[in-house]
């Protein structure tokens, strides 16, 4: 009885291998050949700029709060014109699990995923990326959004000059 099982067990794997040898190939010869990534593939993160070329990130700490593995840290600060930005911004990619939750949390569309994934490295410290390395020169997947044109506190446009805003009121006006 068991001898039949043993014989079957010896032959079957060969048969499976043989059968699959004639099936179409699904893998590619990476790195010579590269596969087409899905448009929503979640790879390495970038910090994008708004259409005016300014840094989009306002250092609101929402991405770092959303990140399940706590790999984002930053320090907010204020520019001359009242713009809030990150004095420093650091992502530890050896911890990142590329879940994309940070991008969902980001209210300014600053942090975005890309299709870049080749980050293997022998030195763990080199997988810690700073703001200079994360910041790119384009808008990423959101070419039109500019946070400060929606948040009416007079940073990108003067107070009351954004679309959908009235001119600042004259407090001392006595008109009804």
């Amino acid at each position, binding site marked *: 009885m068991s001898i039949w099982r043993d014989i079957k067990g010896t032959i079957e794997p060969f048969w499976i291998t043989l059968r699959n040898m004639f099936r179409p190939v699904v893998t590619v010869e990476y790195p010579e050949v590269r596969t087409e990534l899905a448009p929503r593939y979640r790879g390495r993160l970038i910090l994008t700029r708004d259409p005016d070329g300014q840094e989009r990130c*306002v*250092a*609101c*700490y*929402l991405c*770092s*709060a959303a990140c399940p593995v706590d790999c984002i840290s930053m*320090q*907010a*600060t*204020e520019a001359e014109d009242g713009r*809030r930005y990150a*004095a*420093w911004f*650091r992502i530890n990619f050896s911890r990142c699990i590329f879940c994309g939750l940070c991008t969902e949390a980001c*209210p*300014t569309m600053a942090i975005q995923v890309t299709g870049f994934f080749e980050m293997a490295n022998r030195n763990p*410290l080199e997988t*810690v990326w*700073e*703001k200079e390395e994360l910041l790119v020169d384009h808008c990423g997947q959101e070419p039109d959004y500019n*946070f400060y044109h*929606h*948040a*009416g*506190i*007079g*940073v990108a446009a003067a*107070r*009351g000059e954004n679309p*959908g*805003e*009235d*001119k*600042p*009121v*004259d*407090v*001392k*006006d*006595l008109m*009804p």
Partner: protein
Amino acid sequence: MPTLTIDNQTVIVAEGGSVLDAAIALGIVVPHYCYHPALGAVGACRQCAVTILEGSQKGLKMACLIPAEDDMQVSTCEEEAVAFRAQVGEWLMTNHPHDCPVCDEGGECQLQEMTIGAGHGIRRYRGNKRTYLNQDLGPFVAQEMNRCIQCYRCVRTYKDYCGGEDFGVMGSQQRVFFGRFKDGPLESDFSGNLIDFCPTGVFTDRTNRFRTRSWDLQQAPSICPHCSLGCSILPGGRYQELQRVRAGGNRLTNDSFICDRARFGSDWNNHPKRPREARISGEKVEFPYALELLEERLEKLVEEYGGETLRLLGSPRASFEANLLLKKLAEKYGAPAPYYDAHPRRAFAARMAASIPSGQLASLKQLRESDLILLVGVDPLAEAPVLALALRQAARAGARIVALDPRPLELPCDFEHHPLTQESLLRGLSAPEENELLESLRQQLETSQRPVLVGGGELLGGEGLRLLLHFSESCCGSHDCLIFPVLHGPNSFGGGILGATGDSNRNLIEDLENGNVRALICVETDPAIEHSEPGRMQLALSRLELLAVFDHLPTNTVATADIFLPTRTIYECAGTFINNEGRMQAFDPVLEPGIPIVVTGSGGHPPRQFETTPPGSAPRSAVHLLQWLLKDRNDLFGLRRQIIKELPCLRDLDRLAAGDNGRRIADCGDTLEESRTEIWAQEGELQVLPITARYGSDLYSRWSQSLTSRFEEPSVWIHPVEAAERGFVNGQKVVLRTVVGHFHLPLVFKAKMARGRLIVPCLPGTPLEVFTPGGLSLPCKIYSEVDNA
């Protein structure tokens, strides 16, 4: 106490409570903005609608305005009320700038929470948003008016509660604006409360602008170290930096309000010069080595010359536990009992305050409820700012406030001021029956219901406080006349309890000068600044064989110490302070000690490797260092139990928890009957009185960089009549000669101060820092600069 039912849950609320109070007590969220427990209800925001099913008023009502009644039935989920709240929430948001990501309130914003709580999510209104221009309100408070929802809490806080006069509501209709008439720094010493009380991000902390998010902050309930009132605070920090202070809530003391000195004066904790490494004769060493060396040298010294040559100096800044351990250390080495304040007059005042029967000590809450308050030798805004707020609340409820003080007092309420000199005050108290004013006040105190006498330890000294206690006994035979002593530091009272058994006439400086002392250990104090004669003290200190200092401030004494050990600040360790009303209050650590990341990274990315120091070398608390010397292995709780065994009047100490209301000490014993002889100058001689300035005179404000903008210009104050007699004009440059030096200062006329006196505020970083308040007035000479030349 009415019992009512809300959403089928029954609750009992205090007499006078509202339906909203009842809902809050049950944990049912009824969105609300304009109501605040400390301010009361005005029904301005219309957000708290509920349905009253049974009760004297039925239907849709504002929960904050309806007093709770017995057998009331309330529902918060009736369709009509839910829709009403959602509608109001939506209205309030029509003009909101949608800038939460860049708003410092975000994450702890009542508007965020209550808008979601009211059921509003997506903006439907398509009209334009109203906008405002902001004002520059000075270095403490930032304004972003576009976020305002017109709840009026700010005006009720700033004007009504705190008595500020330069802020209010302006405009009409869609133009209602909350601010000053024109740009400029807010004048009130309580302006920071706007930040806590505004339910939106209109007012935020400028000193902490864009630095952190509430969810990232490490916070722990603590006690304010800036004066003796011990207000409860909630400090927060991050990245090893103390970043902000908010008011805690203790309805028996500060009741959700703190002063600006406390709120904006906390960055001394991160001072770049803060000493963080142990040093031996100025050389950095590992801290265990310094500690062992200290023990070795102490033992050798005691063996050779005996324990009497060792002196220990505690401090009103150090926790009660640390001061107590110092006493044990003295016992261990056979040294005389420690001093608990380097300033002998202040120390005696603390001892006297600690000996007042505890039932006779008023709390700030009792002060707010008083009907006649007599301030004797105390300037609330300088010595205990939140006391001024309590006075205002009493005055608003109809109390009369009478002040006897040589300084040109200002208070945020109406009061009667009698500018008497320090000496005539003391003389008057020593024979009140001969003094017309005191005699008439005595009669008024007798007829009032809940009188409180506030005595300033700094001006009156222990002797004055003793006289005040006698005065109170003489005038309040039929009912209690409570006393509210104002002392120097957060734990002065604790030092007073510990020092009660010692000899009050011992004086550190005399001991040092007569050469019998070879070693001195200072715990969190700088005798050279705290003593009334800094120059003399420095000289005396230099004669010591061994000066050991445990501290966390960059003082001169730290720099000259033979052995220096860094300690943790109150934000970095746990402990207890006993405030001026004899209330023991615990504080918890907020942060781990360490160099802030802004420093290690010079503002940019922090270095990849954080540890530059070996583990375990971070500063230890003074309690830990003293325990090491004493070989005491108790934890804090064990230590407190041990304290209770020795000092039964502190019997509730082990039941304290940080953030609670604290517990009053029980009677520690009989009233201290000893007195100290003080020679009070005669009227007529021109004398100079150094006083505490509103900002900068306490050691913590002195090292707090955010407060420097509030420091006054150095000047000498004089009564205009006095000046006219001598031919001086206002603003003239004069030369003031005193025993501590001579000073070139502008003369400033103050019409409301006492005659026959000059007043100088003690200001750090100016030549006037050599003056120490807390003594008697000093003889002086004054010339105009021209004559002098």
